[in-house]
């Protein structure tokens, strides 16, 4: 409520700035104008006349030229004085009609522009969130946590072979939103202490987070190792399913999600997300899950993904989800994600070839992204890859014509 009162005060101040000069007695301004016998330009020319004498003394102007200049300035002076008088004679009266229009503009126009515009842009209900106020007294832990991280970092700088140190610091990095560091730390821990399923799964997760939610080949490898070590583990299978969806392997993704859901109790945090993914792939799911946390980064085990929700540790790092909530970023991120997916598909087709459908998907995606040259290149590669498949070649040719990709 308070904030609306302050908005009103500001608006009134703005309106007053317009109203005050309009409300002056209409001839007050004129009197002021006539108070001066002459306009300001007359004063300047008078001053210039005296300046000529000084210039003459300094030798900046020759005597005969000074005379001429004096005559010149005197002419200007007379002209200025005359035009000032003319001005005074023709100075029109302040029309009260115009003043009324301007006053109406102040009272109605200013709020009419500012309030709707602010409502469209601002978030009036959102309080300030200074960091100090958000750290509860018990959250001194936040600082302790940072000190701890700094200590471990120092130790690791001295002794990079300390596997346990890497193991400790990796999840801490993850919480601080330093996903790239976390991925390296997990890799070090695995190198020094050997691999196990949780380390591999967390490494993959960190790689995904560092790549804006894209399950890259490197991440996939980590998850696959984790599944090999612990076939029942949910996290790697979740990300692998996600990765299949990103690569466009629709059927495989659907079956992966379904297998995953079969093992679920039903109350795990990731279940609604998995169901949402399935729906996105066009499969009806038993119950319409509640609001889906936005973005692929909202995966199980990632405290960041759940924001400040109940399950969070109280110190989530900035996550992709938070940024998306800001609205502006989402288009960009989505673009990045699509590009990630397309380039993966591209790599796979390059390495092992693929079906007609996959080639079509690739060409279409590249064309949609505006990568015309790459799309043309993809058409060429598709023709080479499908040599012998007459029906496939026809499909590709038709597609190329349709998208205008004839090179």
């Amino acid at each position, binding site marked *: 409520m308070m*904030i609306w009162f*302050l*908005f009103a005060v*500001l*608006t009134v*101040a*703005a309106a007053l*700035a*317009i109203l*005050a*000069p*309009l409300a002056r007695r*209409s001839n007050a*301004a004129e009197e002021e104008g006539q108070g001066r016998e002459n306009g300001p*330009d007359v*004063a300047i020319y008078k*001053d*210039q006349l005296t*300046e000529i004498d000084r210039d003459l003394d*300094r030798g*900046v*102007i*020759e005597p005969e*030229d000074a005379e001429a*200049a004096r005559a010149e300035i005197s002419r*200007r002076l007379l002209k*200025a004085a005359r035009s000032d008088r003319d001005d005074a004679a023709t*100075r*029109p009266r*302040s*029309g009260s009609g*115009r*003043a009324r229009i*301007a006053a109406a503009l102040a009272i109605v126009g*200013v709020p009419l*522009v*500012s309030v709707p*515009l602010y409502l469209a*842009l*601002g*978030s*009036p209900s*959102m309080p*300030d*969130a*200074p*960091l*100090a106020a958000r750290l509860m007294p018990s959250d001194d832990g*936040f600082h302790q946590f940072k000190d701890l991280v*700094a200590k471990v970092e120092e130790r690791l*700088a001295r002794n990079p072979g300390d596997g346990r140190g890497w193991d400790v610091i990796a999840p801490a990095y993850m919480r601080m939103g330093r996903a790239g560091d976390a991925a390296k730390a997990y890799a070090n821990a695995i190198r020094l202490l050997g691999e196990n399923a949780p380390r591999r799964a967390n490494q993959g997760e960190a790689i995904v987070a560092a790549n804006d939610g894209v399950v890259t080949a490197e991440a996939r490898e980590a998850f696959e190792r984790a599944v090999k070590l612990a076939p029942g583990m949910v996290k790697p299978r979740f990300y692998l399913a996600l990765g299949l969806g990103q690569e466009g392997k629709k059927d495989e993704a659907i079956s992966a999600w379904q297998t995953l859901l079969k093992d679920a109790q039903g109350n795990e945090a990731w279940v609604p997300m998995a169901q949402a993914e399935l729906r996105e792939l066009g499969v009806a799911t038993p119950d319409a899950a509640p609001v889906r946390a936005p973005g692929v980064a909202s995966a199980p085990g990632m405290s960041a993904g759940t924001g400040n929700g109940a399950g969070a540790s109280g110190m*989530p*790092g*900035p*996550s992709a989800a*938070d940024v998306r*909530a*800001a*609205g*502006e970023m989402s288009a960009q991120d989505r673009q990045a994600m699509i590009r990630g997916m397309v380039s993966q598909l591209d790599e796979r087709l390059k390495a092992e070839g693929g079906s007609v459908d996959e080639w079509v998907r690739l060409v279409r995606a590249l064309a949609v992204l505006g990568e015309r040259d790459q799309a043309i290149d993809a058409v060429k590669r598709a023709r080479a890859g499908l040599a012998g498949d007459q029906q496939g070649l026809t499909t590709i040719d038709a597609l190329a014509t349709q998208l205008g990709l004839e090179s």
Partner: protein
Amino acid sequence: MIVELGHFALVLALALSIVQSVVPVWGARMRDERLMAVAAPVAGVQFLMVGLAFAALTFAYLTSDFSVLNVWQNSHSDKPLIYRISGVWGNHEGSMLLWVLILALFGALVAAFGRTMPATLKANVLGVQGWISLAFLSFILFTSNPFIRIANPPMEGQDLNPILQDVGLAIHPPLLYLGYVGFSVTFSFAAAALLDGRIDAAWARWVRPWILIAWIFLTLGIAMGSYWAYYELGWGGFWFWDPVENASFMPWLAGTALLHSALVMEKRDALKVWTVLLAILTFSLSLLGTFLVRSGVLTSVHAFATDPSRGVFILAILAIFIGGSLSLYAWRAPMLKQGGIFAPISREGALILNNLFLTAACAAVLVGTLYPLALDVTTGDKISVGAPFFNMTFGPLMIPLLLAIPFGPFLAWKRGDLLGAAQRLMVAFAIAIVIALVVAWVEGAANVMAPIGIGIAAWVMIGAVSEIVWRVKLGRIPLGQSFSRAAGLPRSSWGAMLGHFGMGATMLGIVAVTAWQQEVITVMQPGETRSIGGYDLTFEGLTPSTGSNYREDVGHFSLRKGGVMLANMEPAKRFYMARQMPTTESAIETFGFNQVYVSLGDAKDGGAVVMRAYYKPLVTLIWLGAVVMVIGGLFSLSDRRLRVGAPRRAHHAAAAMPAE
């Protein structure tokens, strides 16, 4: 709540700018005093509103309020206080807000100090300021809003680009913006004169202080930016002909020309049409600079914004303001009456010569800056136009200009005596020649350009001094009388002398560094010594250390001359954790005008390190010269001529701020 209050204040400022762009201009058209009177208080309150918005954003930075997207993207709770403040304008959104704040400040200043101006001129000037405000406030609110919030605020920010975490950044952009935006006032004056169809010597006198203020800040801003690049980027270079630097240099060249042509207009009522055009062009170049830097068209250390929608928006602003003002110019300029006549050899003629060379040089820089962009857009070829192009075009244009500088002040108005001026400059000329010959003799035939360059620099400096010497008749009349004559000289004379002298000093620094800089790039083991420029540099070792938001490896060097210990130099390589970015921190020792400069490269095995050391003779003159130029500008600004009509202001001192 404070953040939202700032956001609302910014929206209100937009609403006010609409009023300010319409009502006063309408009033001036109708000659309605009351409508015109609206301009001043509205400009004042608009400044207060933008100030409130800026304060609110600063508050969010100070308290690390990561619920503001802009703060989260560019700040960090570990960041030292000063960089939390400078972080406000160390990013696209915040720097645009600073831009508009300065624009509103200039509007309020015109409103407060323009009491002696004719009402219609003042109303039109503030009206045009209102158009600019409206354009940039819309740009901020619709494409670069710094007040966007995050629903679930993260606990830690992403930190400011480490290369920008430097005292230089805290000062450089505000100075530069004061210069850029200051020229908006001269632009508004020009547009107002065209709207009014009236322009005279008095106009030039009202606009001159604004040109001077803008020029002073732009000079300082460019010098500061150059020094910042010198010590922060680790190359030891002071000017790169980088498009971003050119973007600030072009308005400076045009502004310097404007400064001189306004002088002619004020004194002689001549060059009116040209002066108005220059005023328009100067601000257009400022806008172009803003466009180049802010649109992300360029990718360099400065372009921390990349978003095409913004680029298109600024391009539209650019097209509307430049196109609009030039159309207005084409339509109205022929109606302006021409004033005084003068002979080709005269003070006026000299100033025209100055204008010709400055604008030609500006055009050369413009071509060198825009050509690669145009080529990239049309053909997709990426080329880079570097120092050789500018040395071939800009250099030859500067030499005749520099040679001519000392003559100008010796020539009389209307009709000058070139021979007389030459005679009075004989001493300066002789000294310059002697200096050049001495340099040539020491240097040998190896380097022809050094003696010529030093000679020209000396000529400019001594020529500037000899004008004052001649004016006060030093040596021709008793010393006491000379002193009283010196005291009686108008401050603008001293200003001109200092401005020209500073130009010569800068030139001297540039020539000396270019000709005699020494450079050593080598791998050093601890305990090893290298000598450079007569100094011995010993590498003592490398130690790691930790700052508040970075880790660094600090190299320890001791600097000796003839065995005498002079200084410890500690260049460092820093690594900023949050952004995962390295930076170099160079170490600089100053001896007189000379500097020894050390920066670190990569560490090698066994404690060795790659290091780069320079000996830079007279390098500080480059920036000290700019400082002298600025002092000259301040002298001119304090000249009594510019305070004509000031007595009236004294009575109104209490009411100077219309907003209260």
